[in-house]
């Protein structure tokens, strides 16, 4: 018989759930963490293999992951099985939902790019009139970013730019390769700012090594893998959360635990799905949804992968000095920074990741046979490429709803997801492509291919919104501390809380918001308000 001595229940063990446990357990709060997936054992589950020894020679089993282009045959077993965990989208608007259901969530695989949001995002509406402001400013969140960056050992270079706030970084003073220097000079000439990448460092920068061990060492964290939360229970008298109902992933047996305070970090779409699936007399359209916006304002960052692929001519045939190729960099948003009417035919802006030293894909050459083989030998390591990441605007009609009939393997109603890119995003992508070509040409690179076609919504793995925070409880679900306006003992910590997202990869902000929310929770508890 379990003793139920926990003070809080945490759902999910990724960036948000892991950070909640890290702060609360160390503050002496007893945490029960329910995680849908199993635990990963890096020694037992991972071994080196040659691609030719895989059954599908690295192509992967056809049709296994129709929506996860990131899945390879090597890591196929890490990604969420789409047949057991189905979802739907309009046929004309594909949505690529990329999930990892394991202890640690997507932090087991994230690319670790870690940028702060700025007041261009937090106060976006004040700047250009679109959407809603966040109910907090950079000044409110900066002290929490200050604590997360050293924990994740984020490296990079501070530039003092208002649109890309400085951080507490491990200084990246690495020298640039010659091709990179040429590109940076070309960017400077056109007034385009550039900086070093900003990334969490270390062999693994995941919740499973950076957050959960410290939390568990306190003796205050109980982790329950294989516990798929189905519904959140509410006290009919108070309207507060009082229980969490979950299913054992393997046996499908159902369980219930009491919950005095609930912290939800199941990831953007899963958290909102769970709230929408938790209907009651008090909350007939989903838990904490008196505003009617739960599920709405879904957005992400659109990606145009390899917007420009170029060749550094001097590197052809392996010629050129040793330090000609290599290195990576970042261009922050630099358009529409002046307040008022946008200078472009779109609102907001985009960023670029760029890198030197790759080999362009053979697909890009209109050749085959010996001719192609010679070309590939000639351009090996001589490539330069840029990927665009653009802001997509949150819109009411972009949403997650619950499918009327579709259910997952455990009988839980599945989501229906609707998001498409509009003219604003397409105009931005086109501008990014044209500017990228100009920068590469300015550097004396041969542009091999350029395009402005973004991958489908979701594929950037930066899905955000659907349970947004805001100052006005009639237009938002959460307050500025990720606490539900309607249900005081419910906190939603993941990316669903974002009212807008800029171009910056979101995880650093999810982590900082979680630290802020959980410390607020601690203060509330101390004051007897929770």
């Amino acid at each position, binding site marked *: 018989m379990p003793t139920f001595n926990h003070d809080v229940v945490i759902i999910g063990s990724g960036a948000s759930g892991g950070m909640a446990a890290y702060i609360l357990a160390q503050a002496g709060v007893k945490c029960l963490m329910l995680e849908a997936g199993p635990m990963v054992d890096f020694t037992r*589950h*991972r*071994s080196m293999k*040659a691609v*030719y020894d895989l059954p599908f*020679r690295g192509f992967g089993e056809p049709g296994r992951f129709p929506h996860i282009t990131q899945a390879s045959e*090597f*890591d196929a077993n890490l990604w969420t099985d789409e047949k057991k965990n189905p979802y739907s989208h309009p046929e004309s608007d594909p949505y690529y939902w990329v999930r990892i259901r394991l202890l640690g969530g997507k932090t087991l695989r994230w690319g670790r790019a870690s940028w702060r949001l700025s007041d261009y995002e937090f106060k976006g509406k004040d700047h250009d009139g679109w959407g809603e402001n966040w109910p907090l400013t950079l000044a409110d969140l900066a002290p929490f970013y200050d604590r997360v960056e050293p924990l994740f050992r984020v490296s990079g270079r501070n530039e003092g730019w208002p649109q890309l706030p400085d951080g507490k970084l491990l200084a990246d003073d690495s020298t640039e390769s010659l091709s990179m220097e040429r590109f940076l000079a070309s960017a400077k000439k056109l007034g385009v700012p550039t900086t070093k990448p900003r990334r969490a460092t270390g062999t693994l920068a995941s919740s499973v090594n950076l957050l959960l061990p410290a939390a568990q060492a306190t003796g205050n964290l109980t982790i329950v893998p294989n516990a798929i939360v189905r519904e959140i229970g509410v006290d009919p008298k108070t309207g507060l959360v009082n229980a969490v109902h979950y299913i054992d992933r393997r046996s499908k047996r159902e369980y219930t635990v009491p919950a005095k305070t609930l912290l939800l970090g199941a990831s953007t779409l899963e958290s909102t799905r769970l709230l929408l699936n938790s209907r009651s007399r008090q909350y007939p359209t989903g838990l904490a949804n008196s505003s009617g916006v739960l599920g709405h304002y879904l957005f992400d960052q659109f990606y145009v992968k390899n917007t420009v692929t170029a060749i550094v001519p001097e590197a052809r045939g392996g010629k050129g000095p040793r330090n000609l190729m290599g290195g990576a960099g970042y261009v922050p948003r630099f358009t529409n920074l002046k307040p008022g009417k946008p200078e472009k035919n779109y609102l907001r802006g985009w960023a670029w990741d760029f890198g030197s030293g790759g080999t362009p894909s053979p697909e890009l050459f209109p050749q085959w046979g010996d001719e192609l083989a010679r070309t590939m030998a000639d351009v090996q390591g001589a490539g330069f490429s840029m990927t665009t990441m653009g802001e997509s605007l949150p819109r009411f009609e972009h949403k997650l709803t619950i499918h009327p009939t579709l259910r997952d393997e455990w009988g839980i109603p599945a989501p229906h997801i609707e998001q498409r890119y509009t003219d604003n995003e397409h105009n931005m992508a086109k501008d990014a492509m044209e500017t990228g070509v100009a920068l590469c040409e300015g550097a004396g690179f041969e542009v091999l291919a350029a395009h402005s076609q973004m991958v489908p919504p979701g594929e950037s793995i930066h899905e955000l919104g659907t349970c947004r925070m805001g100052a006005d409880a009639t237009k938002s679900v959460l307050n500025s501390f990720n606490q539900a306006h309607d249900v005081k003992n419910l906190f939603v910590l993941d990316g669903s809380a974002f009212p807008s997202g800029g171009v910056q990869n979101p995880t650093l902000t999810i982590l900082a918001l979680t630290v802020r929310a959980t410390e607020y929770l601690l203060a509330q508890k101390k004051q007897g308000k929770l």
Partner: protein
Amino acid sequence: MKRRHLLQTLAATPALLPAQQTNPSPDENVVLTVVSPESAGLPVRRFFTPEQFATLQTLADLIAPSLDGRPGAKDAEAAAFLDFLLAKSPRDRQVLYQRSLDTLNRTARTKHQKAFSELGPTEANALLAPLKVKWTYAAPTEPVAAFLRAAKADIIRATTNSRAVAEANIAGRRRATGLNPYWQVIE
């Protein structure tokens, strides 16, 4: 038996003369040398008709010939692998391959009164002209052009990722590629 497999087998199983026989060990952690199913037998073809397969083989050879000692599609048995892959692929991909291989063959017969697989290199290469267009993000709308683009990528990948290429890299002291961490099923 394939020569490659024969060599591996010879290396892996030294003749067991009574004098050399090792004593049975009670240890559970024995290490035995094994080979993959792919290197032990000849693959059974399931998907393409003999004519389509012959066309694909010829096409594969044109796209990825062996060059300067580096194995090509033929050494990598890329066409046989694609027969297996296509048998498991979504229907639209299967149709694209089947119809386009038939079209290539029909065009060869109309133009040269020969099957595609019987054409000389100049005639056969001329039929691959749709591959000469500048790359665009969207695949071409004309089916044979779309097929050639897809097949080019598949043939190159099936060749690059083959055991033949890996062995040649090792033999030529080039950097071994394609070795990566593999994740087992996590239960």
